[in-house]
């Protein structure tokens, strides 16, 4: 089975935010929630970098570990998914997540949180693949259709890569060799305890 990962080549990201928009549109993500976002560090200063970030589908995911109702599960492709039927909106996965991926729609008073929503690696949820129930809760299931996540598929500079670890790591390594530099796979050390030598 594949080991699905995201890799954002920071030397290529031009902060166009098309990944953010594509994701919101593809999954009909609720208002106020962005499963993917682009963060710019040192904005406007020399050495600035933009990185597109979403759930990294961590190895031994912290969200999964801290969930009080065990609503998370990791698929055979190493994609970290969750059940909105089980989620109680306690907010603990956000406290544990190193990437700030889980988000909650505001559904009531006292800032009370609804069911958590996060990037699914375009792999839906526990419902039947591409069923209406799955789409309503988690958005489309492109993986079940044999397609990769849309954010990476339509990235204009091919900065964002999504797919099996071995393949995207190989693509990135070749890029680094060819152009002679690379700022590394952002987030990999935190998410997978490994990095790509650059």
């Amino acid at each position, binding site marked *: 089975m594949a080991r699905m990962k995201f890799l954002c080549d920071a030397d290529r990201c031009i902060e166009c935010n098309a990944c953010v928009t594509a994701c919101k549109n593809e999954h009909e993500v609720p208002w106020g929630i962005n499963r993917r976002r682009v963060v*710019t560090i040192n904005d406007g200063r020399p050495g600035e970098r933009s990185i597109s970030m979403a759930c990294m589908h961590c190895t031994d995911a912290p969200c999964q*570990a801290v969930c009080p109702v065990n609503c998370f599960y990791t698929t055979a492709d190493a994609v970290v998914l969750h059940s909105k039927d089980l*989620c109680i909106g306690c907010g603990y996965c956000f406290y544990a997540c190193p990437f700030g991926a889980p988000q909650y729609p505001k559904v009531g008073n006292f800032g009370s949180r609804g069911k958590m929503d996060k990037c699914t690696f375009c792999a839906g949820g526990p419902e039947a693949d591409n069923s209406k129930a799955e789409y309503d809760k988690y958005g489309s299931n492109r993986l079940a259709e044999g397609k990769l996540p849309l954010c990476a598929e339509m990235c204009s500079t091919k900065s964002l890569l999504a797919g099996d670890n071995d393949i995207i790591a190989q693509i990135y390594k070749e890029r680094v060799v060819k152009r002679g530099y690379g700022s590394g796979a952002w987030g990999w050390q935190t998410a997978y305890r490994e990095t790509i030598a650059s």
Partner: protein
Amino acid sequence: MTALLATRLKTSLKACRLLLATLALVGLAALAQPASAQQPNAPQPNSVNPTASSVKEDQLLQQMRIIHGRGTIPDAKSYNLEQPAGRDWRQFHEVTLPWIGAIAVLGMLAALVLFYLIRGMVKVVAGRSGRTILRFNALERFVHWMTASCFIVLALSGLNITFGKRLLLPLIGADTFATWSQWAKYAHNFLSFPFTLGVVVILLMWIAWNLPSKVDLEWLKEGGGIVGDKHPPAQRFNAGQKMIYWIVVVGGGLVAATGYLMMFPFYLTDIAGMQLAQIVHGVVALLFVAAMLGHIYIGTIGMEGAFEAMGTGEVDLNWAKQHHSLWVEQELAKPRGEAPPSRAAPHPAE
């Protein structure tokens, strides 16, 4: 003539060889130049390496606990690119906190069972007198039971967050457990308001009798009559009760403050503050539960005649003399049957 020609030819051949050798050297050098430039990771002298001057992830992670940038969506929390401290919080929440809780709660239960087996119920030594004295009025009892009943629900729903998936989930299944946990969370959120009100009223209502005094030192030296058969003098609240009071006020205040930080997430704190709030909330709450187990024990099966204080509000005079001698003296010394000076005496009709 031929000899001269031969010599000339030799010199020109030599010159040719020299030229060829030089050409070859220059050519080699020219060939060698691009070859070295094409080696991986060795940029051409005039090319730009953007990563040389750019921010680097490992460097940023070493410098700060959170890699923060700028974003284009309204949610300011999303401007944190990486916040690996979540992993430390996970360690606390999944390992440290359950251990603290298990040791505190189970340890307290074990100690109480052991204590009950050794000491048994603390009896009223002189026997019941049949006469009673008012210890807690209706308002005090109401506030106590409002706070107490909220505390029990808050404690159970809180314990469920830490221990439920380990103890209850395997028994009742994922769906039932999720439904129960959802309702438990609602109860936890909403009952926090009467609980907090109760803590505030308790603070104001009883603080006058809960300031430490010299009597408390004596009481503590004598073991409070809990260990041994002595019954050292005590005021309305003995040192042990004063401790419970301050545990409720300080502990209750801490769990309330950190609880509201979590109920209104990110209004006042950032992610580090939220993690810290949960850590304080969890630890204080579990120690609070352990302390309240002791309080419940001594108020029920641990001591004869104690429950009545919060039950009917009237305690037996002999119980009061045994446990709160100084308070009883004060109460009995109060003038009885006289109208309080503030109330005007009724005038006979003229």
